[in-house]
């Protein structure tokens, strides 16, 4: 319908076109192409190359000085699963734009490369020069939740003393991210209190927060949370994704096609939520 104006809708975008758009003049097409490559997990080497280059973009700026293209590129690189992107993402951790740093921390977590741990700890202490706070309230100076979650997933036990103070952070979301990381980094017998803290958070008044905690519990696969997850006031879709995290952890405890008692219990609960 817009074929003569050079505007494509997503049905017509191809990998070649998206890669070309990402290097083209049109800022709108560039930022969309970066999102598109991540959304459809186009993990061809050329896509990784152009996305890494987009992390250095200076053309696309918001009035407040943000870098929309860099944000989308950082998010996409996490989804594409190529560790070649790690050095570029580490560099993006010192970007002035809060949301670029947040996306970079999340993507480093997804790529699972522990090389970024020292820099994530530096950022947690807000010791990286030139970084601007978030533009939205509560205007956090750093994306603490993303950093804490990355440290937990990357197994950064050396960061435990740095993480602990965030259990009392004034923003609940950050507290929960710290509890999630502490659960992942603690010895199993010491981890329960952190999991239980997340269970309590499932009855928080704020729906957004309950949704976030469902994701946290799924990420740590805390079996004792199964009932509480099913009772949470939130969409069944999100509860089911959370329970899937519990189930996957249980599947590691038996050899297929045997199922642990925990796995049977989780599936019984999931069946009721369909």
């Amino acid at each position, binding site marked *: 319908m817009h074929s003569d104006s050079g505007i494509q809708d997503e049905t017509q975008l191809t990998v070649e076109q998206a890669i070309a758009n990402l290097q083209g003049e049109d800022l709108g097409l560039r930022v969309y192409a970066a999102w598109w490559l991540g959304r459809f997990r*186009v993990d061809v080497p050329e896509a990784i190359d152009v996305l890494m280059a987009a992390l250095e973009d200076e053309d696309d700026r918001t009035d407040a000085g943000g870098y929309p293209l860099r944000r989308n590129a950082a998010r996409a690189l996490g989804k594409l699963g190529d560790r070649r992107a790690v050095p570029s993402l580490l560099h993006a951790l010192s970007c002035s734009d809060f949301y670029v740093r947040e996306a970079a921390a999340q993507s480093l977590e997804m790529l699972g490369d522990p090389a970024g741990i020292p820099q994530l700890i530096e950022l947690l202490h807000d010791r990286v020069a030139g970084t601007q706070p978030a533009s939205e309230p509560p205007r956090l100076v750093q994306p603490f939740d993303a950093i804490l979650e990355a440290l937990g997933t990357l197994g950064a036990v050396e960061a435990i003393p740095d993480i602990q103070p965030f259990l009392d952070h004034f923003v609940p979301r950050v507290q929960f991210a710290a509890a999630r990381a502490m659960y992942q980094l603690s010895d199993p017998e010491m981890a329960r209190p952190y999991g239980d803290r997340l269970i309590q958070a499932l009855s928080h008044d704020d729906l957004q927060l309950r949704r976030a905690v469902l994701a946290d519990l799924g990420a740590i696969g805390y079996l004792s949370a199964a009932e509480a997850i099913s009772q949470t*006031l939130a969409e069944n879709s999100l509860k089911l994704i959370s329970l899937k995290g519990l189930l996957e952890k249980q599947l590691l405890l038996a050899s297929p096609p045997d199922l642990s008692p925990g796995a049977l219990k989780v599936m019984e609960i999931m069946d009721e939520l*369909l």
Partner: protein
Amino acid sequence: MAESLSSLIRAVEAADSAPLLTEAVQNLAAAREAEAIPVLIAALSYNNPGAAVAAVEGLIHLGEPAVPALIEQLDLHNYTARAWAIRALAGIGDPRGLVTLLGVATADFSLSVRRAAARGLGMMKWHWFPAELLEIAQEEVLEALLFVAQQDDEWIVRYAAVVGLQALASAVTTTYPAWRSQIQAQLDQMATQDPSAAVRARVWLAQQQLRVGAATPKVTDTSSPLTPTDWQVILEGLYRRKGQERLVLAEGDPRRYHELAVAIAQNTDQP
């Protein structure tokens, strides 16, 4: 109307925040009163997921008396309310929802609707069906669930299809053993091939339970409340489906884009 019920309804009407509304709808749903049906149905369109989940649960428990009002809801143009109504219908398993569930299980835009429909198709109240309709209805359900189990991109929809297929396999064990074998062959394949570990696990559970012949739920409501006209409408709906080319995905369906993207990516991989 009992005093307590009117006060529960007033609490829903007076709720002025999302948490209060959720709580009020939960309390009303827990009362299990048929007179609450219109208020619970209205709660499906409040754009409050907590309240809608509670209302759906309440409507499922009320069962058959809620079906006519839910079917009315399907014709309205509020997409969210329609999706919740389909989920309630799926949970009730009333045959009047069958044709709708068949349609949405394979083609709805929303994965939560496809998911609920896939499970609901397996949980139909088959014992209500007149003999002449049972075969064609179960065959349609079998085809739809096999399609969903093989083709849906979302792990949770395939998971729900496995739950539905397990229930259907139990229901047809003595009547149509060939269909049961077809379901088992599908499960055998998914047990190792499905990309999602959670789906594979649910397949293993289904295989175990089918092997030991897990009890089908007890039938308590043996006589169907459906009228001959209801059955006529269902039959017409089923025949209409038979005549249609199934699963022509709409232009706007995101799965189309997905397939497209995969096809393109594969082409690009070639030197």
